[in-house]
């Protein structure tokens, strides 16, 4: 067993004087200080905006850039006639490990489309953002690419998104007016069925 003697590095006289070391530190902080001060002044004058003067992201005004595969709030993709692409196959509800998705399917008048969701709820208070619903969907009907992160509510009910908010990510609680035409269980007007397929056809004739 060979002994290995480790010599701690001794401070040289120059380092023991301490003042040169303080000046070295001051140099570093001063470089940062004056560079950032100069950049801030330039930003006030409206130039050199691409060189940032601080690493701080001013959150509500400036959003943090997200990866394209980042899983944020869900949305339902739409067909040309403004109805959900979802065919009510229940795969996402089945695969969901947190059991936060509730779908009530309804009959679609188009024989090429099996079903459609009369009701599509996601309870974000339970959701674990695993993204399985997106991966399992055969119709690319649900995505998690809205980039919305500021989800907060004072009540549990407030965390439940219904079909209105899922189809239009811009909508925030409380939703006051319903703009959907196809028959759906409308949470806005108190949970009764609303709309009809004859109203949808008016907008689009390319459906067979």
């Amino acid at each position: 067993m060979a002994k290995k003697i480790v010599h701690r590095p001794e401070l040289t006289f120059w380092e023991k004087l301490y003042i040169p070391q303080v000046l070295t530190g001051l140099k570093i902080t001063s470089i940062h200080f004056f560079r950032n001060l100069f950049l801030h002044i330039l930003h006030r004058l409206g130039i050199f905006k691409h060189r940032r003067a601080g690493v701080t992201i001013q959150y509500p005004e400036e959003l943090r850039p997200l990866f394209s595969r980042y899983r944020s709030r869900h949305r339902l993709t739409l067909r040309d006639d403004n109805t959900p692409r979802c065919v009510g196959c229940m795969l996402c509800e089945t695969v969901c490990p947190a059991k936060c998705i509730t779908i009530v399917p309804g009959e679609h008048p188009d024989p090429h489309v099996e079903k459609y969701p009369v009701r599509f709820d996601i309870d974000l208070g339970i959701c674990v953002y695993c993204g399985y619903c997106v991966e399992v969907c055969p119709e690319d009907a649900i995505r998690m690419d809205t980039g919305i992160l500021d989800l907060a509510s004072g009540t549990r009910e407030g965390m439940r998104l219904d079909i209105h908010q899922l189809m239009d990510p811009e909508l925030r609680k409380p939703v006051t007016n319903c703009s959907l035409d196809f028959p759906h269980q409308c949470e806005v007007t108190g949970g009764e069925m609303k709309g009809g397929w004859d109203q949808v056809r008016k907008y689009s004739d390319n459906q067979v």
Partner: protein
Amino acid sequence: MIELLVIKFILAGFVLFMVMNFAGLHTWIERKQSALIQDRIGANRASILGFRLMGLFHPLADAIKMFLKEDLIPKGADKTLHTLAPLFSVLFALMAFAAIPFGPPLELGDRVIDLQVAKIDVALLYIFAMLSLGVYGVILAGFASRNNYAILGGLRATAQMISYEIALGVAVIGVIMVYGTMDLGKIVDAQGALIWGFIPRWGIVVQPVAFVVFVTAALAETKRIPFDLPEGESEIIGYFVEYSGMKFGMFLFTDFLETIMVACVATTLFFGGWQVPFLQSDSVSNPVFVMLGMASFATKVMVFCWVFMQLRWTVPRFRYDQLMTLGWKGLFPIAIANVIVTAIVLVMIDLIGGKS
């Protein structure tokens, strides 16, 4: 007599106004400067009617917060002393400003007004006395809190301030020897002269070693990083743990006041006070000269405050034994040696017959 009183009141009011405002601004300066050093942006959210002004309203918001907070006095603590302690701290820090000459003599008609609140022959001693009395605020705060940690913090603070006061005093002896007076006004006057016709005869030129010792010891006097062992807000508990509300704010305020005080003394002793380099009193009219002098003094003080703030955000804290070693084995012998060398040089100059 009444006229003299009015003049003194105006002078005192002016000094108080400037000093208090600058100390209040120091919280903003501290936030913004540290932010710039660390590549951040700093507090900028407080706004009045949507105007943010780079966070300049934060000191105001702080003050309102401090005044509205509940003022707790621990059970069993000495109420009188507990209330007196922050008062002492602020009072002595403010009183020291009375002896600082902040501008050249102003001629109004046939009356000459010295821009100095109290014209004291031994102004330097007065300032040191006030700085030393500041210890009472600290030790009383620790003692009256009925908290063992607070008392230990107070003891640390007292030991540190007393140790560094010696180095501070001895460092200044060199300056007194060179200028031959303790009157700050006369010291500043003497610094207006030129050596060999082109170097201003400032304290830093004739006493560079004393300057380094003085600034180091003075930083320790202000109890700020790197010498903030009395407080050490992040790890060790300081003497004002049991304070809240505006009483705590007053201790914080004292820190800033002392920083400005030390900047003022350093400017007066080592950087020519209100002297503008190469500008003599007969080259411009008196009001202009006074304005320039006051601007020069303010600029120098601000630069010193900037340097102290930069040091505070650069240097890590000392260990307590390192602090004591630096004070007693480092600064004190250097200061003594400086005094001896200064004495020898002064005698030599006298013997040769030249005048420095």
